[in-house]
Structure formats: structure tokens, C-alpha cells
């Protein structure tokens, strides 16, 4: 099977606190995986480990077959990480951000790729603007445009719709679908379960750092709701996380 992402036994500790324990999953090319869980479940920690931002305490992460620990640079060339908070360089304009990222990822024909991206994310008339002159949503769009510039094989989103306007949300959803159909493996972490239900093929539910469910959305709903087809992913999520939560 051709996997974009393979995670085997991922464990991440902060001193004595176990943020993620023995978490395994895989995302095929063209598949969208939703990573959901309550606040503090370990979602962002997992995504940061997948992006190579912090080293896992234990476990193996492969990006397009490349071990993230041993072939970090090559593995990172295949992926794009979109954090929940856009972290831009205050002193680079919109256009310069794209030029900078293009060189980092050795993107050729950047002019031809830049204009459609800027139009797609409604930044065409702000190409000379600094991040300080952009709204929160526009910064988020620029961050995403930078991520898409090198046509990544693996895309990791942490709350991708935060700060976007309705049109931006629609375009973002279309963009995710289009890129997954083009063969990208996508991981999407969000509390918006209707979004996960709409976009994702599979879902992994994480709570207290441990995986408590991992299946296709239809299978998961079927299993959790005992075959009732009138219930949503949200109902299934609330049921499964309530079952796993120890009584107070």
C-alpha cells in the first residue's frame, strides 16, 4: 500500500507528563484523515511531531516512506504544515514570503504558480503588503498559500478554517478536496466535526494522548451508534469520548 504518512507507536512525553502514547495510524495517498479529540487530547502535539517540529520520545514516523528521524530534510520536502496560528515573518511582504518558500523547496516556475495561488486565496491585490497590514484571516490564507506552493505530497492542517470568512472556508474545503484527489495525503485536525465529516475519509479519535477510535467515518458511526444511520459524527464523538472519560 502506498502511504503518505505512517505513524507507528508515536509517544511524546513532557517530563513526567505523557502527551501522546503509542499512537499509530497511516494515511494513504489521496486520503484525508481527520484527527479529532477534546481540548488537551494531544492533537497538536501529534501534528507537530509529524511536521518534524519536535522529536517524538518514541515511535516511528514515515513521510512518503522516508523516516522523519533519519531523513528529516528529505521527508520535510514532501510535507506542508499549516499551524493553527499563522507564524509569518513580519518584515517580508506577501510576495516575498512565497519567493522565500519557493527557494527553500526549490520550486521552479514560481511566477506561474504564485499568481493562481494569490488569486485562489484572494491575496492578489495584497502582494506588497506586510503581515502587519493583513487581517488574521488573510495571514492564515498566506500561510496556506506558502504551504501549497511546492505541491506537497503530505499536508498537515491544524484547525485550518480558523479566522477564514465564508468564501475562504468554501475555497479552503475545495482546495483540500482537490489536493487529496491529486494524490496528497491530508491530515486535518479540527473541532468542527461537520467539517471533518464532510471532508475526511477516515477519522482518528484521540483522548488523554491515546487513540480511542480509528476507522472510516461510516464504520465508526455504525459501530458507535449501533447501526443507527440518523446520527452524526458529532453524536458518535460525544458518545465515544464520554465512554472513555473516567467518572469524576
Amino acid at each position: 500500500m502506498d502511504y503518505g504518512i505512517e505513524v507507528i507507536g508515536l509517544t511524546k512525553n513532557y517530563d513526567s507528563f505523557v502527551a501522546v502514547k503509542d499512537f499509530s495510524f497511516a494515511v494513504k495517498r489521496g486520503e484525508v484523515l481527520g484527527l479529532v479529540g477534546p481540548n488537551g487530547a494531544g492533537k497538536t502535539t501529534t501534528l507537530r511531531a509529524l511536521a518534524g517540529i519536535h522529536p517524538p520520545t518514541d515511535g516511528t514516523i514515515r513521510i512518503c516512506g522516508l523516516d522523519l528521524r533519519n531523513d528529516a530534510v528529505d521527508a520535510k520536502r514532501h510535507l506542508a504544515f499549516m499551524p493553527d496560528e499563522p507564524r509569518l515573518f513580519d518584515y517580508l511582504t506577501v510576495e516575498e514570503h512565497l519567493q522565500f518558500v519557493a527557494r527553500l523547496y526549490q520550486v521552479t516556475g514560481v511566477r506561474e504558480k504564485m499568481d493562481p495561488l494569490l488569486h485562489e486565496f484572494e491575496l492578489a491585490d495584497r502582494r506588497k503588503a506586510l503581515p502587519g497590514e493583513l487581517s488574521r484571516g488573510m495571514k492564515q490564507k498566506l500561510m496556506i498559500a506558502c504551504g501549497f506552493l511546492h505541491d506537497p505530497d503530505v499536508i498537515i492542517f491544524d484547525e485550518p478554517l480558523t479566522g477564514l470568512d465564508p468564501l475562504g472556508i468554501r475555497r479552503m474545503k475545495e482546495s483540500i478536496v482537490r489536493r487529496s484527489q491529486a494524490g496528497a495525503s491530508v491530515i486535518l485536525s479540527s473541532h468542527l466535526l461537520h467539517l471533518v465529516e464532510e471532508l475526511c475519509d477516515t477519522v482518528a479519535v484521540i483522548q488523554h494522548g491515546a487513540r480511542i477510535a480509528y476507522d472510516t467515518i461510516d464504520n465508526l458511526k455504525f459501530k458507535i451508534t449501533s447501526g443507527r444511520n440518523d446520527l452524526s459524527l458529532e453524536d458518535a464523538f460525544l458518545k465515544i469520548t464520554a465512554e472513555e472519560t473516567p467518572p469524576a
Partner: protein
Amino acid sequence: MIRTFLTVAFLTLKNRILQRIRRLRQPRYLIGAIAGAVYFWYMIFRRLAAAGNGRILLKTFGASPVVTDVASVVVLMIMTLAWALPSDSGGIEFSEAEIAFLFPAPLRRRDLLLYKILRAQPQALFSALIMTVLGWWRRGLFVGIWVTISALSIYFILVSLGRARLKLAHIGFIPRLLGVAAIVAGLSSLAIAEVRKLPPAAMIDAPSFFKAIGPNLAGAHSPFQKPLIRTILFIPHFFASAALPSSLASLALSSLAVITLAVVFFYLAAALNVSFEEASLSASQKRAARRGAGGRRRGSSVMFRRAPPPFRLQETGPVEVAIVWKNLIALMRNSIAWVVVFAATLMFLIGLALWSHEPSAYKAIGFGMLWIAAFFPLFATNIFANDLRLDMPRLEVLKSYPISGERLIAAEIAAPLVVISILEMLFAAAGSVLIGMSGETSKFAQIVATPQFIVTVLLLTLPICAVQLLIRNAVPVLFPAWAMRSKDEPRGFVASGQRLVTLAGNLLVLAVCLIPAAIVFLPSLWLAHTYFGGSAAFVGIAAMPAVAIIATEVWFGVKALGAQFDVLDVSNETDVLVS
């Protein structure tokens, strides 16, 4: 309401202290705390010893009337110039949490002002304590300083709201500025007239001045006794007397007067009833954005947004060039003012020397430039921080890029290295040439005024500046939490200790790096002199082994720091919450 506000201020202080105590479980904070505690203990101990076994309070009294008079003038100027500040939005600094909770709450504007004043008291108390203990105001006393700081802060709130009220009355920045300028001009004329009445000898030069007034400062006090000046300085004098009391009675009276003035300022500010909420919200958002972008670190804010990129970045090629390109843009947009300052200083000094046509001026200015060149790598690496230090708030993005830590570190320090090295070389070369022009015959002058010296400086500048930059960039990699301090982070002796440890570590590592090069330099100099003596290249050849050693150290340093960067887990260091 006051009780609630005091409770919030107390709980904030308590929780902040507890949080800092909990942080001490991490060795790097503990080291900083111990260093800071030792430093402060030493300062207090020395002060107590100087005052004589704890009789510190008694020793603090007795400020000379002239000192108080001069302080009154300073206070007057500060109070006057505050009206000339451009801001007229009336914005008062509140934290984001304060805005979120207090602004929608059923509170009057007066209550918000009161909260702001009470909330500032722990910081004012701490500042007063530090000033008293460290003896920065050697004749100051804790209570008086605290009262002065608090009252002046209330005055500044009043002025801030006053400027906004003037704007509503269509009196903008320019008329305010002109008004303040007229007042300052009037006061200056008065001061000049009084100075002219001093004995002629006192106006000749500084030594004569001090000779004339030194033995009897009361003479200098006399102009301040004139009714007009006493009237002008009436209010500022209370502040000066409270902070620099001449006796216990003076302290008590002045403090009482200042407290009364503070109450008056508060009610005046409340009576202005200026809508400051929107401006405060805007200021809070800007502050949050600044904090997200790296706090108030020098060179972290864009000053010249129109500065163009230094060169066109090609799409392919070494990825390091992208980092250098980015940092050069940062340098041009954030720190170009410093480049201009140094270049202008250089041009001014050269122009001054050439204009004077004096050998003594060539010599003095030439040695001055060499002195600047000698210390330039030390302070310039702190000024031009357009490297990893600037990128700390975006560390998680940097770590997701396909570039190894080693290559990233090398690229990060390249941009400031280029600028610092060029400025360093210019100062050293200009100093050398000027000393040569002075005709100075001393042995040292003969050495530094040669082309060989300039060649040696050219050779050594790059690796030495690289070592210094590497040390500076090691701090955010080895101690990210120390490097990511922001304006709103709690400070105190832990932060002071961290700075002390960093400074000491910097000097120690620099010394350790330079020792092998210095050891090699002496025999290589002897060998070069023996075999290439008389040749123009001999000093350059002599310096090459030392240069090679420092360059090797830099290479190893970059590799080690890069490896550390690759395994750096910033979420462990900066209290990033797991989510």
C-alpha cells in the same frame, strides 16, 4: 470595588511569584535564580555595609538643596514635555484579559482608571525597592520614591487623556507642540538669564565652574529661591523632595503633598471622561502582535517597509541563500537606522579629522576609531540581531522547513556577519590611515598604521565576528526560554541572573575560543618575521594560522549548534500547552 481591585492585584502578584517558583524546578531557571540572588544579595550587602550595619535609612537623608532643585527642573521638564507627545488617542495600557473582563463589566471609567492605578502598584513598589536597594538614587528613600513613581504615573494618565480631550477640542499635535515649545523656550530664557547672573569665572569652563560653586553649593541654590522660579517649580519640587528628601520631616510633608496631588490628578483624569476604551483595545492588539513577533527585542519591528530586497532570489540553488536573503531584508527594514548611525559616525569622524588639519586630531580620532573597532564585535552583535534570535517566535515554522540545523545556523548568522564585518573593517581601516597621517612615532602607532595591520584586521574580523554571533545564537538554541522573554514576562532577579549568566558565558566562551588562536599567533608571527620579514604580506601570513583555528572553531560550533537545533524541543522550553 477597591477591595476587589486590590484582591486582583494581590492574586496576580501571588500567582506570578508561585509560577516563577515552580519554574525553578528546571535547572536553567534555577541557575539564573541563583546567579540573580547572589548578585542582588551582594548589592544589598554592600549597600548595608556602606551604610553601617543596617542604618541605611538614616544615611539616605540629607539630599543637598541644589540636587533637589535640579531634580525639580527635571520633573518640570518631564511633566511639560509629556504634553508634546504625538499620541492623542487617549489609549491606556490594559492587558488583553483586562480588556476582555473589565471593559464589558458594569464599571465606570473612573473605576477602570482606579483599577489601572492599583494594578500598577506592585510594579511601582518593586521599582522603588530596587532603586532604593541598589542605590541608583543614593539619597532616595523607598516610600518617597514609590509615592513619586505612582503619582507621576497617574499624572501621565491624566496627560494622555488630556491630549485626547484637546484633540476633541480641535487642538491637535502641532498646536500642542508649539505650545509646549513656547513654554520650554520661556523657561530656558529664564534659566539662561539666571545663569548669566552667576560669577563670570563660573562660565569659563567646567573646572572653573565647579571651583566657583563647588565649596558652597548654597550659592547655586540661590537662583531657585527667587519667587518666580519657586512658583514655577512649586509642584515639581514636591516630587523631587519626596524622592530625594533632605530630612524625615521633608519626606513626610512632600509625600503627603504628592499623594494629594495624585488624588487631584486622578479626579481630573476621571472628570475628563475621555472614551479611552477603543484606543486601549487597539494598543492592546498592537502589543499582542508585537509580542507574537518577538516581544520588544531590538530590531524586531519593521521601520522601513519600503526598503527593497538586497538582491533577486533565484528559485533554485542552495537553500541557505533564502535564509540570508530573508535576514538581509530584515536588517534593511528593521535595523537600517543603526547602519546609518554607524556609517554617519564614521563619516563625521573622518570629516572632522580632515577638516581640522591637525595631527593631534588625526591621532585622537584614529585611536578612537580603533577603540570602536576593538569593541564593535561585542556590542554590534547585540544590535544586529537579524538572525535566529529574530526568528525565535517562528521556531516551529523554521523547524518544519527542509533544511538541516547545521545549514540553518550557518545561514542565520551570515547576514549580520556581513554587515558587522564591513563596518568593523571600515572603522579599523579608517583609524589606521588616520594614525598614519598623524605622524605619531610611538611603537604601537607604527604597528597599527601599516597596511599589514589592515590586512590582519581584514583576515581576523570575519572569524571573530562569526564566533561572537555564534555565541549569541547559541543562547536561543540552548536556552530558548531565556531568549523568548517578552515585555509582559515577569522579570526580577531570575531574569537578571539569566542575563548575568549569559554575559559571563559569552565572555568565557569568547576567551576560550580566542586562547588557542592567540597561542598559535606568537610563534607564527616569529616564523613569518623570520622568513617573510620585510615583505608586505608577512603579518597576513603570520595571522593565517590563528585565522584558521578560529574558523575551525566556528565550523565545529555551527555543527554542534545545528545538531542541537535538530533535537531542540521548543515546546518543552516555552510552556507551549499540549492541545
